[in-house]
């Protein structure tokens, strides 16, 4: 089973990368890209039987390893689930 994890800086945390990219885009003439925030994106291959297990495992891994809850938040999406719904 596959899961996707999105890790983003909390909205209040400054994202220097995103704002540098936004500025670069402005100087390239993309004025209408008002803002950019950069995050991380993980695709996990999980050896588990059920969607529930997948969800739980992905969330645990995300909160323990992939994200630092002090500055980041994360979201988990099951790939098959997404397709099915």
């Amino acid at each position, binding site marked *: 089973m596959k899961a996707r994890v999105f890790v983003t800086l909390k909205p209040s945390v400054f994202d220097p*990368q995103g704002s*540098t990219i936004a500025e670069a885009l402005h100087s390239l003439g993309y004025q209408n890209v008002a803002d950019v925030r950069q995050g991380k994106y993980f695709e996990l291959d999980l050896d588990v039987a059920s969607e529930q297990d997948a969800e739980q495992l992905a969330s645990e891994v995300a909160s323990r390893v992939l994200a630092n809850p002090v500055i980041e938040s994360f979201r988990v999406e099951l790939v098959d689930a997404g397709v099915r719904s």
Partner: protein
Amino acid sequence: MTFAVVVFPGSNCDHDSYHAVRHVLGHDARFVWHKEASLGNADVVILPGGFSHGDYLRTGAIARFSPVMKAVADFAAAGGPVLGICNGFQILLEAGLLPGAMLRNRDVRFHCEHVGVRVEQTDTPFTARCRQGRVLNIPIAHGEGNYYAPPEVLETLERERRVIFRYATADGRVGPEANPNGSLNNIAGICNEGRNVVGLMPHPERACEPMLGSTDGLLLFESVVDALTAGALGGGR
């Protein structure tokens, strides 16, 4: 001889290249700000190391859009010698002046240390003074020097003898034990089809004085002076 050292916001080895050229090699060096459209009367162009635009997004990804890069491309197209060091190499890759791309080092850590760099080809302006197979002792300092190119590109590079430097042991063996970052085929530096644009991850400008532990890097700068003096290259102006 005049060397143009291009300064991008975030370049940080610009002064080191300048110092090596001007104070060690004894040639003229000038800084060219990335917003400039012209390289002036430069005979050689150096894209120095550093973290242009913080290396945010990808190494070299934003710098390639700088106005000066059009001038660098024209200079290269006219046969002028261009040397991209570390971040400069990464910018050349992003700009398409050299093929391939950089990935994070295999162990995802930054490496700063002296490594063995074997000279594979001597028919470029920056290696003319070297003996083929000689192993130079030069430092690396990068987190993303893991060279990648798709198989067909890699094959072309090898066939056209465009791999100029490879990581090697002190006695010249090329293998995983000498590869600091996971680069395909131990590639440390390559050149373009015209052989006048050379990019490498190691820092020759850090190995130009006995006090710094090695003078092997000076060979690259001396080579280009030889090449230009011999008139072997088309004018890049």
